[in-house]
């Protein structure tokens, strides 16, 4: 099972350029038409499950607007087999 991840996109920095949308290997990022930033952009956000927390969106983001979290795999390994 791939690791689970999530991203938080800052409304302060995001300009809706869609570079993260094009770069996401899982294709789970899209601009959110229901949100609007103070500058008038629709910010990017996760629109479905499947984020693995790979961080590629954050690498290509020109505004460093994305914080990427990933499930701690050490915690998963700590669960004994068969539990």
């Amino acid at each position, binding site marked *: 099972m791939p690791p689970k991840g999530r991203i938080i996109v800052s409304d302060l920095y995001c300009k809706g350029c869609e570079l993260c949308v094009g770069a996401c290997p899982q294709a789970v990022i899209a601009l959110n038409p229901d949100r609007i930033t103070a500058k008038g952009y629709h910010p990017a956000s996760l629109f479905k499950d499947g984020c693995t927390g790979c961080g590629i969106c954050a690498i290509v983001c*020109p505004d460093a607007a994305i914080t990427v979290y990933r499930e701690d795999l050490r915690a998963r390994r700590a669960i004994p087999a068969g539990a």
Partner: protein
Amino acid sequence: MDTQEEVIVYARPDSLTKTNTHYCPGCTHGVAHHLIAEVIDEMGLRERTIGVASVGCSVFAYNYMNFDFVQAPHGRAPAMATGVKRVFPDKVVLTYQGDGDLASIGMAEIVHAAARGENISVFFLNNANYGMTGGQMAPTTLPGQKTTSSPNGRDVETQGYPIRASELLATLDGASYVVRRSLHDPKNIRLAKKAIRTAFEVQLRGLGFSMVELLSTCPTNWEMTPQNSLKWLEEHMIPYYPLGDYKVNPAVAEIKG
């Protein structure tokens, strides 16, 4: 998901200020900014770094990078960086320049700074036009490329050929590390970050002049979407400006190895 079971893969680097930038959406200036900030954070250099901002879109770098900055007259960032570095040899001095600044009005300063082997790091953003003033033709504009001041495309008969700054500076003995990287996809962005790190290592070891040229996009003035401008960069700019290491002093090669 319980937050205690999560690790942070990426967070905005401390060396960027908490302000949004004036750059157009999708402009890769921002990518260069966060790469430099990440490297400075990772190397713990923030308290001893002095940046020199140029003129152009890159002028506001002093508002976005969270360390000491001075602003140079147009094209004179390498000359000012020379002075800063000679007065404060213990500081890490970088310049952040665009192609209109470095390859046009500032050509004399960059060539002589490299020839003197000044111990500074230069980050050179090449987006093939003058972005801030409205997309005029720059020395790096490709042959046939349409800009607001070459509406029929750059004609090399009357307007000459683009300047390949990295190849030019690599011929100088004072230059220790001169490379060209691109910011058009995640792999090349990672390679660019490594080059930025090596440039700082070169300076910290006193090995002389280092420059990283970064091929960059200008979606607004190229009149493309940010996604299409990345494709245009890959298809048109990289064939003319090949990526690679143009000058790696043998002493620098040891750091890389």
